[in-house]
């Protein structure tokens, strides 16, 4: 069964802010999805509504065509893990082994052997209380709870917070490995786009509670290009295109253009002595969400 998530005109308002602002989105089928957005762009809020942690203020959130909120048939299929210390906040007084036992009891697809494997891989002491773990270890534990739940829809909201680089890469490796061994929908939110982007199959970018784009990661990478060369030639080439960013250094310049480049365009660029390079998703993200600084 391949899961489908849909949001229609989804809204979430807090007392005096609108976190999700009329967002419409459909995600279909297994794979690793990246939910990319700046701090405060509404990633956590969106995920919270999709997982039934909060009720939407407006619009609809559905999984497999069914409304999510308080739906006993759908909720066991969804697992949201929120980042940093937040994730296991409900478990602070518990020992690691208790947190694992709770998940084993309540998660229909829990894989205890896999959880044990990950616990030793990340070097977590199961006899410790959750509150005694470092932030990084707590994040690792949270990630373990998310991965071993094997939920058809798994949402991992910045679960890497506080993990050091080796732990983060171990986490990405696991995410990738397990998504191939047990295909399911894994939605990873992050603002460390550079690190996470190679493992993404699809990218959902949101900004200020609205959908910015939803695209195949490869297509998106082909979507933009950094053009560099003599300033005049660059200016000629980019005229009439969407330019996200332009830099000049003496007589040479480089510009980031957004939009599909046809093979003829690429050939033309090469012939006129321009260099074309792909734009890392990170840069595309930075350019697309620049706006005013918040």
């Amino acid at each position, binding site marked *: 069964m391949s899961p489908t998530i849909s949001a229609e005109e989804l809204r979430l308002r807090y007392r005096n802010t609108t976190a999700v602002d009329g967002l419409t989105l459909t995600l279909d089928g297994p*794979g690793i999805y990246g939910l990319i957005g700046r701090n405060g762009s509404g990633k956590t809020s969106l995920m919270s509504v999709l997982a039934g942690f909060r009720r939407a203020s407006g619009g609809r959130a559905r999984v497999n065509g069914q409304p999510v909120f308080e739906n006993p048939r759908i909720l066991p299929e969804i697992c949201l893990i929120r980042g940093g210390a937040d994730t296991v906040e409900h478990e602070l007084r518990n020992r690691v082994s208790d947190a694992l036992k709770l998940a084993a009891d309540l998660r229909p697809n829990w894989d205890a052997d896999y959880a044990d494997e990950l616990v030793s891989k990340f070097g977590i002491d199961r006899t410790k209380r959750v509150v005694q773990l470092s932030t990084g270890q707590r994040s690792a534990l949270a990630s373990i709870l998310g991965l071993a739940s094997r939920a058809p829809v798994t949402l991992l909201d910045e679960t890497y917070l506080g993990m050091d680089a080796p732990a983060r890469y171990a986490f990405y490796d696991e995410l990738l490995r397990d998504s191939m061994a047990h295909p399911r929908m894994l939605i990873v939110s992050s603002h460390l786009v550079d690190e996470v982007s190679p493992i993404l*199959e699809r990218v959902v970018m949101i900004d200020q509670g609205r959908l910015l784009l939803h695209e195949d990661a490869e297509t998106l990478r082909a979507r933009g290009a950094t053009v560099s060369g003599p300033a005049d030639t660059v200016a000629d080439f980019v005229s009439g295109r969407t330019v996200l960013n332009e830099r000049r250094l003496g007589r040479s310049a480089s510009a980031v253009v957004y939009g599909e480049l046809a093979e003829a365009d690429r050939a033309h660029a090469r012939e006129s002595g321009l260099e074309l390079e792909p734009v890392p998703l990170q840069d595309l993200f930075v350019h697309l969400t620049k706006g005013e600084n918040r």
Partner: protein
Amino acid sequence: MFDEHSPIYRQIADAIRADVLSGALREDEQIMSTNQYAAHYRINPATAAKAFQDLVDEGVLYKRRGLGMFVHPRAREKLRDQHRARFFSDVVDPMVTEARAIGVSLDDVIARVAELRDGGEHR
């Protein structure tokens, strides 16, 4: 692992092409699965699949349903033809441009090529 100058799938395809050209990958030899590539290079399997698809389209690889990807019997030949066709535009022309830019006379270049040819023949 990857440079930032071209898309990852293209780099994977280039690496496989290079292996076929050098003979490291032989005709009808099975290559690693997309999942193995994905795990090894820490990339999404869809990205690896795109590289494979490009190579299938080019006739470098062929797919055996349920078994995986294999090197096409004529892949090496085809790649050599392609590279031969592009050799002058990709290698010689830029070399000449570079030589002119830095003031190396083309006669010297020709002399050097002749020297290498004769040296190569003696060996």
